[in-house]
């Protein structure tokens, strides 16, 4: 497993760190309550990472299960140099990308995005914005979705993404900007100001 993706900016120190350390020590001995505590505390983030990178709900559930098993299997090797959340996050990303490679879902990472494929019904009344972003991102090709989530949601740099995905930083940027352009249209109800967007012409930048 490659360890090229650095610490996510999301993984900042938190109040539960000492609890995590205690729980990790107990979890390594097989204490069920400690294992469950770690899962309860970190599953919302870890599962979200997997779900967003994978897209397909059924495949995401299987990969997330595998990710958690790998996290627990690797617990004895956790030395505490990083926070548990950071460490688990790295496993989640690497394991998920490996799984996606195996399923060839990243095979088209370098291909251009298809225009307006699989438009989704957007619900303006959706109470959770993140759900709408997830819905919109489901319309993106796998490679573009992966780049979008790694960069805009997880906070990785293009260089990190390029190293992990085996593409150039330029390709990562290209995929990201195309993904944003499409998401901006799909999520107009979320990001538009008071005036609606109009048809536009363009200048060279």
């Amino acid at each position, binding site marked *: 497993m490659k360890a090229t993706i650095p610490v996510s900016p999301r993984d900042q120190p938190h109040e539960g760190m000492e609890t995590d350390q205690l729980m990790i020590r107990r979890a390594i001995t097989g204490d069920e309550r400690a294992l469950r505590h770690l*899962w309860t505390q970190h599953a*919302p983030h870890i599962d979200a990472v997997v779900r967003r990178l994978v897209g397909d709900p059924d495949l995401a559930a299987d990969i997330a299960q595998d990710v958690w098993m790998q996290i627990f*299997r690797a617990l004895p090797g956790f030395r505490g140099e990083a926070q548990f959340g950071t460490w688990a996050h790295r496993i989640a990303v690497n394991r998920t990308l490996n799984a996606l490679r195996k399923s060839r879902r990243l095979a088209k990472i370098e291909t251009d995005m298809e225009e307006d494929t699989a438009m989704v019904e957007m619900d303006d009344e959706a109470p959770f914005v993140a759900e709408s972003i997830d819905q919109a991102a489901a319309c993106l090709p796998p490679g573009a979705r992966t780049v979008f989530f790694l960069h805009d949601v997880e906070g990785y740099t293009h260089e990190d993404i390029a190293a992990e995905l085996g593409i150039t930083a330029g390709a990562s940027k290209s995929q990201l900007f*195309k993904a*944003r*352009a499409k998401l901006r249209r799909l999520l107009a109800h*979320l990001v538009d*100001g008071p005036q609606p967007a109009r048809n*536009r*012409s363009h200048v060279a930048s």
Partner: protein
Amino acid sequence: MDHSRLGTDHMLHLEAERLAALADDEITAAERSHLAVCAECARELSAYVALRDRAYTEGEAGSTITSWTRLAAQLSAEGLIRRTDIVERRERSARAVGWMQAAAALLFVAGGVTMGWMGARVSASRNPIVAGSADVATASQGVSIVSVGGSRVTDTLARFTSLVEAQAVLTRAEREYRQAMTYLASNDTTTATFRNSDVYRARLAALDAMAGAARDGVNELPHDPIMNQYYMSTLAAREATLRQLGGTLPAGVRLTRF
């Protein structure tokens, strides 16, 4: 992409993907000049910045897609979990139920043997080989009829007036039961079936399993007299079966029920 010109200003706008890039890229001088005079491009850029910010700030929200039940099962299968919570208590309870079922079966067998032995003891005057020194029926007695060797004989059923009295009788009966089992194992020549060593081996295997369950019960409740009695009874039956398996069974003894 729509390359149509806007109505009155005849201004070319920034590409959508460039505006998307400008959410975090540096703006060139030309782009800055354009954005300064083009409200629409400025609004588009604001939308991309808002999209980027929302993606990051809302990124943490999400429900779990894993199930602890499924994870715990796999962890258990791989030996990575030590069940310490209510699940373990439930499993222990389930094991106790299984143990109690085994114990109940043993009680049924032991009760049959004890009653048979007691019946034989009543007829000791007619069958001197079944000799017992204890008089179990010292409490006030009821009367019942049992069959010994095909004949009807009178048996005694004990009734008790206190817990202490009942406990004393139970302890004595237990001790005598074990003694009787050992004796019968050495002297019983009942049927040809029991001469078949396979029967004794099968019984021995069953008793071993029961002794294991009874031992678990004793370990869990080491001071419980019932648990200890079951355990000792099982060991006595096992010892008796071992003797029978040895094949030294003199003639002259009939066991009424077993």
